[in-house]
C-alpha cells in the first residue's frame, strides 16, 4: 500500500477512534451528557472498548479471506491500543464515579459481584498486550512468543462480552449482537485455517 493512501487512512482511523472521547469531553464541558451523565460515560467507554477490540479481531479473518486487504494489519495495533485506552477510561470511570476512590468499596465489589470481577479480569488481560505492543518488545520476545502471549486477546474479549451480559438486567438482549459478532470472529479462525490447509493441499496435488 502506498504511503500517500496509508497516511490519510491512519489519520482517519485516529479521528474515528477519538470521536467517542471527543463527544464525552465536549458533553462534559457543555453539561450536555443527557439525564444520567455517569451512565453515559460508563456505557460509552465500555462499549467503545469492546467494539474496537472486536474490530481488531476482524482483521486477521478478513486478511485470510481477501489477500488484497493484507495491508489492514497496519491498523491492528492502533485499534488494539485504542481498545485498551477506552477500557482504561471505563475502569477509571468506575474507580472515580462509582467507588469514589474507596479501596474497601472496590475490594467489596470485585469479590462480591461477578460482573465487576470479570470486567477487571478483561482489563488485566489487556495490560500485558498493551505493554508488549512496541516493535522493540516484538523483537525482544521473538515473533513466536509474542504471538503466543497475544492469544490472551481472545480471553479478554470473551471476558468483556460476559461482563456485558452480567451487567444488564436478566432477560435483556442488548449484548446479543456483539456476542454473535465475536463468536463468528473466534470460530472463523480455526475454520479459515482448515480451509487454507485444504486449499494448499489441493494445489500441491494439482
Amino acid at each position: 500500500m502506498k504511503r500517500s493512501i496509508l497516511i490519510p487512512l491512519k489519520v482517519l482511523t485516529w479521528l474515528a477512534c477519538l470521536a467517542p472521547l471527543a463527544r464525552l469531553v465536549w458533553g462534559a464541558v457543555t453539561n450536555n451528557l443527557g439525564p444520567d451523565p455517569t451512565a453515559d460515560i460508563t456505557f460509552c467507554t465500555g462499549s467503545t472498548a469492546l467494539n474496537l477490540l472486536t474490530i481488531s479481531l476482524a482483521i486477521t479473518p478478513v486478511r485470510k479471506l481477501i489477500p488484497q486487504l493484507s495491508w489492514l494489519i497496519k491498523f491492528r495495533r492502533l485499534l488494539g491500543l485504542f481498545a485498551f485506552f477506552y477500557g482504561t477510561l471505563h475502569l477509571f470511570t468506575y474507580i472515580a464515579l462509582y467507588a469514589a476512590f474507596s479501596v474497601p468499596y472496590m475490594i467489596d465489589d470485585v469479590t462480591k459481584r461477578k460482573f465487576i470481577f470479570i470486567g477487571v479480569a478483561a482489563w488485566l488481560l489487556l495490560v500485558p498486550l498493551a505493554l508488549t505492543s512496541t516493535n522493540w518488545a516484538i523483537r525482544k520476545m521473538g515473533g513466536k512468543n509474542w504471538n503466543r502471549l497475544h492469544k490472551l486477546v481472545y480471553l479478554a474479549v470473551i471476558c468483556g462480552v460476559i461482563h456485558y451480559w452480567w451487567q444488564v438486567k436478566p432477560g435483556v438482549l442488548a449484548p446479543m449482537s456483539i456476542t454473535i459478532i465475536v463468536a463468528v470472529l473466534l470460530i472463523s479462525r480455526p475454520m479459515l485455517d482448515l480451509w487454507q490447509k485444504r486449499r494448499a493441499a489441493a494445489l500441491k496435488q494439482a
Partner: protein
Amino acid sequence: MLIRKPDEIPSSAITPKAQYLNRRSFLSRAVGATAVAGAAALGLDRAAEIVSPSLGAHAGTKLETIKSPLTTTGEELTSLNDVTHYNNFYEFGVPKDEPARNAGGLPTRPWTVKVDGLVKKPLTFDIDALLKLRPLEDRVYRHRCVERWSMVIPWVGYSLSEFINKCEPLSKAKYVQFISYFNFKVEQWAGQSTIDWPYKEGLRMDEAMNPLALFTFGLYGEVLPNQNGAPVRVVLPWKYGFKSAKSIVAVRFLDHEPNTTWNEMAPSAYGFYSNVNPNVDTPWSQKTERRIGLPFYAQQRDTLLFNGYQDQVASLYTGMNLKRDF
C-alpha cells in the same frame, strides 16, 4: 352525523402537547385519524367513539389539583424533560430514550381497569370515572430505580387506598396484583427482552393501603405522558421503581403472594418487597445512587433506607428480617 363540527372541539385539544412534541407519534396518530375519517365515511359506529370523547385527556392536558400534606419537601425537582425522556418501560424499548419515542401508540382512551379476585363483586372502572373518584393531589416524591439512579417527581393522584376501598375487597384478600397493558401490535419493542408479558406487580394489602401509595394519573400538574405509564399507574416511593406498575388494566385481590415480573426473572436479585435499602445488595451495591439531571461529578449521593420514607412505612415491616425478605 358522526363527525363533529369544528366549533365543538376546544382549541386546546387540536394538537395535544405530547403530540406536537413528538412528530413520530403525531404522524402515526394522523394516519389513525385518516383511518377514523374513512371509517366514519363508511358509517362504522366505533368511529364516533374514537373521534369524540376525551381528546382533552391526552398527555399535556392540565389537571385540577389540590395540595397534599404527604408531599416531600426540600428537594429540587427533576426537570420535566428528564422525567419524560429517561424511562424504563420495556414494552416500548429497553434503552431509556426509546419509550418517549415509541409510546405514542398506547391507546389511553377508551381505557378501563378491571377489578376481580377476592372482591364483593367484580367491577370495571372507566378511566374518566377514576379521575373523578377523589380530588387529585400534587405529591412530590423521590423516585429510586434499582439501577441506582433517582429523580424527584411531582406526581398527581390520590391514595391507592381510596381506590381499593371502592373495590370492596373481602377480608380474605391479603395481597393485590396489578397487571399492565400489553399488546404486541402496539408494543413490538417488547421483544428486546425475554420478559413474560404482560408486566405484573403486587403488594401486600397493608402496603397498598399505606397513604403514601399513590394511584397516579399525572405529573407536573398534567396528564401522564404515555411513556410514564398513562393513563393510570401506581407510585410507591419507598420501593424500587419497578414495583410501581404502569398503564394498569387489571387489579386482582388475592389471598397469596402474587407473581411479579422481575421477581420471576431473577428471584435472587429482585425480591417481592424490593424496598429501597442501602444495606441489601441487588446485583449492584445499593449504598449510593445517582441523581438524574446533575453534572457527572455531582450525581452521587447516599441511598436512604426506604428512600427516606421510613417514618411513614417502617412500621409495615416491624419484626421482618429485611435482609432475608428483601
